[in-house]
């Protein structure tokens, strides 16, 4: 069949791969090779120092530079990142939040240097702080100034960068944090309302522009393995958004009320055990967000099959891109109108989701909206509860996961070697080289220009002016991300979000739990005081869901838990462990910076003569786990260790062995 005989087809969604690592140079090469393979948009992953506003040589950046994404500290990095990629032809999604205004400023400045005007730029800045407080953890500023920065960007881009999506309301990370579909819908809508209300309240956004503003709000959804329900979720959100635009914001043009969303398929549900099975999961999840034309995503990024093992290689990402291309070009999916219209079953499910989500949304609005429900920890507590329930269901086998808690017998996988060759390793030199580039950049810039630009930024923000124009000027002047963020930190302060770990206790304790609880008590008697554990996250990785679950579980088996939260330096962990008199330390690191950070903590303890056993959890390749064990770490847990009760039992073993009272 040639093109002439093929039926008319819909235009496919934008194909993207969330990627970036090591350096702007290496990431630019990766982007260009991905585009050459048929990828139609870019999705930039920034490293954690870039996301949290620290220069690569800041103490908190240690071990994190170039790990989970590309370091972009200044205009030179951004120019290199998009070298030979004409920005007027690109559709770029940037996963950036607290420092979104800065990265967008760098992008605009880079475009200007390419000779491309800002109004030609297409793409998205994620810029959703609510979900950062709830789940992802790369927030910097308190809610109030964060909402101001978001609304600044919306107000600015609606005029100056009209094809840009300044905010991408994320329900993706809510699902990762445990949200049920109903919670995902309700909290995403509450979040969008918070943004829209903030923009609506501005003097510089006339009421007649509000429909355009409404149309610029896009979403970022998760697609889980229950793909039928996910289809219904997409349809429910499409309808709710349309109604919200019409009823709350008076948007009369239905085109401006279209629910536009991008998707990252659920990475959290990917398994470390029998990782080849993940390909099947990814295919089904991709189908969930493309199947129903009415609720089809606008852009899709698929994870790689081996993400639970470590960073994917270019070949792994290519495999995922091919899934999208086969779905869009080989199958007949795009030849039909909506396939589910008229299905009573789907209709009923959509109604059920809408009704329950509306009730939950009303609850959040009644307590003052999404910002209030972050500050009083309501949403966080609900998420931690859902997540705890989910993990218990996995532990008990009630929720089957093939290869993990059922059908675990397996042949050795030919895709996974023994030597960790099946993942990408970031060159250890990347951090050092990035710092060298940063220093060279600082040396060549004009200090007077930088100082003036920072002063201009400070003054504009204190006077309530829009953050964008002075940020673009700062980008051209050679300001660094750390300097930009420090200026804002001084004005706005920093924030710690509530953790939600006060969540309700387990009401039923099965036999295994009771056994561990009894052992915890007995251990405390031997030690002379109750078993005390420190749980925290070193480095800049803010994905605190795992650490929070460990903290809640430890409390539920009777331990006294000092929960230290996120973004801790090794020095803080050592001081905390010492001052609190804990018997054991549990650290969680998902950003891949485990070697540097854990070894630093061990060294710090050594220095003050502290001997406290340590256990680690994270996405840690076996080779690294071996290094960590050799350095003295007692246990290393990875995503395949889902049985929290067993982990707690082993923590007791570790404490008893170390105290020599076992």
């Amino acid at each position, binding site marked *: 069949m040639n093109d002439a005989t093929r039926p008319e087809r819909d235009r496919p969604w934008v194909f993207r791969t969330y990627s970036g690592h090591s350096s702007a140079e290496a990431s630019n090469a990766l982007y260009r090779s991905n585009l050459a393979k048929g990828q139609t948009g870019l999705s930039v992953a920034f490293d954690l120092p870039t996301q949290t506003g620290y220069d690569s040589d800041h103490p908190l950046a240690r071990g994190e530079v170039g790990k989970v994404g590309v370091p972009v500290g200044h205009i030179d990095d951004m120019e290199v990142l998009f070298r030979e990629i004409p920005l007027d032809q690109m559709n770029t999604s940037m996963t950036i939040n607290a420092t979104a205004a800065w990265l967008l400023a760098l992008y605009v400045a880079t475009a200007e240097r390419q000779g491309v005007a800002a109004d030609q730029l297409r793409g998205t800045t994620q810029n959703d702080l609510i979900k950062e407080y709830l789940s992802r953890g790369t927030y910097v500023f308190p809610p109030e100034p964060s909402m101001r920065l978001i609304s600044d960007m919306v107000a600015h881009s609606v005029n100056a960068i009209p094809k840009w999506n300044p905010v991408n309301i994320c329900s993706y990370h809510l699902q990762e944090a445990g949200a049920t579909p109903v919670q995902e819908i309700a909290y995403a809508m509450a979040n969008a309302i918070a943004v829209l209300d903030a923009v609506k309240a501005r003097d510089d956004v006339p009421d007649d522009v509000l429909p355009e503003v409404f149309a610029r709000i896009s979403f970022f959804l998760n697609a889980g393995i229950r793909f039928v329900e996910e289809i219904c979720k997409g349809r429910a959100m499409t309808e709710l958004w349309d109604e919200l635009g019409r009823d709350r914001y008076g948007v009369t043009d239905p085109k401006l009320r279209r629910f536009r969303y991008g998707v990252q398929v659920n990475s959290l549900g990917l398994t470390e055990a029998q990782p080849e099975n993940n390909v099947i999961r990814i295919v089904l999840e991709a189908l969930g967000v493309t199947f129903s034309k009415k609720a089809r995503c606008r852009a899709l990024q698929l994870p790689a099959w081996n993400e639970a093992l470590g960073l994917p290689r270019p070949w792994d990402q290519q495999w995922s891109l091919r899934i999208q291309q086969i779905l869009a070009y080989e199958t007949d999916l795009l030849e039909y109108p909506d396939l589910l219209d008229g299905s009573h079953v789907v209709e009923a499910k959509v109604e059920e989701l809408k009704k329950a989500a509306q009730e939950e949304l009303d609850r959040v609005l009644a307590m003052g909206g999404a910002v209030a429900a972050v500050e009083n920890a309501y949403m966080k507590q609900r998420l931690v509860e859902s997540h705890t329930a989910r993990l218990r269901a996995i532990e008990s086998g009630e929720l089957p996961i093939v290869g993990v808690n059922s059908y675990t017998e397996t042949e050795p996988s030919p895709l996974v070697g023994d030597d960790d060759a099946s993942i990408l390793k970031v060159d250890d030199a990347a951090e050092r080289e990035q710092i060298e580039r940063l220093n060279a950049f600082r040396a060549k810039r004009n200090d007077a220009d930088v100082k003036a630009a920072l002063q201009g930024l400070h003054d504009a923000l204190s006077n309530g002016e829009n953050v964008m124009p002075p940020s673009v000027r700062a980008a051209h002047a050679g300001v660094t991300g750390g300097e930009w963020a420090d200026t804002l930190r001084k004005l706005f302060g920093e924030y*710690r979000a509530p953790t939600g770990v006060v969540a309700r206790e387990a009401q039923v304790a099965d036999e295994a739990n009771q056994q561990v609880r009894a052992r915890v008590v007995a251990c405390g008697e031997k030690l002379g005081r109750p078993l005390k554990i420190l749980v925290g996250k070193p480095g800049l990785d803010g994905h605190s869901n795992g650490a929070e679950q460990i903290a809640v579980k430890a*409390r539920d088996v009777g331990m*006294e838990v000092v929960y230290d939260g996120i973004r801790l330096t090794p020095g803080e962990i050592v001081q905390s462990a010492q001052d*609190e*008199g804990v018997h054991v330390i549990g650290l969680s690191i998902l950003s891949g910076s485990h070697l540097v950070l854990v070894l630093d903590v061990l060294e710090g303890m050594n220095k003050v003569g502290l001997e406290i056993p340590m256990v680690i959890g994270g996405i840690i390749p076996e080779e690294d786990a071996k290094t960590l064990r050799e350095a003295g770490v007692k246990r290393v847990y990875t995503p395949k260790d889902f049985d929290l009760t067993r982990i707690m039992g082993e923590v007791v073993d570790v404490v008893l062995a170390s105290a020599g009272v076992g």
Partner: protein
Amino acid sequence: MGRDLAARLLARDRAAVAPALNLVDDHRPEARREATAVLAALEEKVLFGGARRIGLTGAPGAGKSTLLDALVRRLRSHDQTLGVVAVDPSSQRTGGALLGDRMRVRSGAADPGVFIRSMAARERLGGLAEAARASVTILAAAFDVVLVETVGVGQSEGEVADLVDTLVYVAQPGAGDLVQFMKAGILELPDVVVVNKADLGLLAERTANELKAGFGLGERNGAWEPPVVLVSARDGTGLDELETALQGHLESLTAEGLQTRRRRGRDASVRKSLERRYGSHGLTVWGGQAKLAARLADERDPSGFALTETLGREIEAALRTTETSP
């Protein structure tokens, strides 16, 4: 080793603080003997001296840890070293506890001038006051200021009042009307009242006015009328006034008043410890409240911890005598 540890603490050796706190938490007999020795040695010096002690109490969600964070920042800016005890409730069912205050007090992270120890209240084991008192005694030897933060539920405000020189009650705007404050008994104990989250505006002011009216009604001993301060820990509003209020209370106490207050706290803690261990029966058999009052008044024994042990042995002896007599 006990004496040595005490000497190190009195010499303000920070590295001695954690081991000392671990020791006084240890319930094994040999540890308890050693702990009593350390505490007795410390109390000789710090019962009437040592750090200034400030307590923060209030309902859950009133913003105590945020206020604590702001206060730590403030006091550190005056170069004062700080020891903090943050108490969180334990689970009644599992005995476990989530201690999350440390995370909220970021100003102390990696600052050797701030020492934070989180404690589980261990309600079902009883004796929070005793454990907290031991911790305060240790911290009072090694730092300039000791801050004690607890969730105020019923009796615990009273227990904290016995531990500190100045008790700050943190009220939430709209937490209730005057009658509810009176019912909760919180109008008698605090020396300073903070209405937190002053950024809530009118609601906070109304709560503050209710409380001011309440203190005007009397019910308290002494001339000090607790100031009601509106504070927003978020933007720093009212922190100057809070500092002035804390200083004002300290000055109003005078040296003699401070001694009286600390002695009263010590006496209350000895009495409670003995009652908890031996019950009113044990005390009566030994000689009753009058005898206890006389012994407490005895100047030769400044250490409450040592006195509790001494009196405990006497009571045990008295109990044995009654059991063996026909």
